[in-house]
């Protein structure tokens, strides 16, 4: 299973690079979906089937679609692409690239500087995850639901029309 793994890894890297350098928002979103799907393939090849399924369904399927919806709603159009081109001059890349590199270097050193650990691989199936969630991690489930509730309430409130516009109630919701 190593070939799918490394292939998917390469795809993920390229797609992510395209996400952060693309000027068209919708294109960037689609690249991001590609990146997420390749990470799902990586999960499959690691034996984490359940995680892969979750990645596709929730991450790529729900969250990215939400992004798309909002992007469509904003309806910015061609002007946005032009604007992005102006903003993304090569000069602005210097600082962030340096910073990202500086973050990467210690991580790489930590990963490869120590002693070699032999590679192991286990399949973690849905059943064991389920047992963990209903067993020792039951509170995690509750916390997650609370988090979602809070997120839902916050999002609903923040996205409301301002009070003076609400009264008029014309179409726009």
């Amino acid at each position, binding site marked *: *299973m*190593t070939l799918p793994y490394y292939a998917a890894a390469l795809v*993920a*890297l390229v797609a*992510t690079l395209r*996400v*952060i350098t693309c000027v068209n*928002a919708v294109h*960037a979103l689609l690249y*991001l979906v590609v*990146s997420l799907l390749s990470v799902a393939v990586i*999960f499959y090849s*690691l034996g*984490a089937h359940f*995680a892969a399924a*979750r*990645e596709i369904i*929730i*991450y790529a399927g729900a*969250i*990215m679609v*939400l*992004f798309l919806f*909002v992007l469509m709603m*904003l309806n*910015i159009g061609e002007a*946005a692409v032009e*604007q*992005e081109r102006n903003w*993304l001059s090569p000069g602005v890349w210097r*600082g*962030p*690239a340096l910073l990202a*590199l500086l*973050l990467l270097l210690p*991580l*790489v050193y930590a*990963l*490869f500087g120590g002693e070699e*650990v032999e*590679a192991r*691989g*286990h*399949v*973690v199936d849905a059943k*064991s995850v389920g*047992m*963990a*969630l209903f067993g020792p991690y039951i509170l995690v489930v509750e*916390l997650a639901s609370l*988090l979602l509730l*809070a*997120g*839902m309430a*916050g*999002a609903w*409130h*923040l*996205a409301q029309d*301002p009070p003076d516009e609400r009264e008029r109630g014309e179409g726009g919701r």
Partner: protein
Amino acid sequence: MNAIPLEHSLLLASILFCMGLAGVLVRRNIIFILMSLEIMFNAAGLAFVAGAAHWGQPDGQVMFLLILTLAAAEVAVGLAIVLQVFRSFHTVDADAVSELQG
């Protein structure tokens, strides 16, 4: 199956994370910033799942579930804020919303 070294997965996760970080710092469009944040979330999730696969424990996947939940909530709230910003400032430029200065 042939096992894949943990370091490789973690290296991939690190590179993705740093790319996401660069994206957050570079892009001015708030939507792109949110997308870069998603990349960072994803990278962290990848690290956790890789660890779970390496040691055969479901704890990593549980953490991945939490990360997913977190990402979902964050995206919901974040996009709602984007909508509000767009209504108030009529732009999605992150540098335009700088009234808390000085």
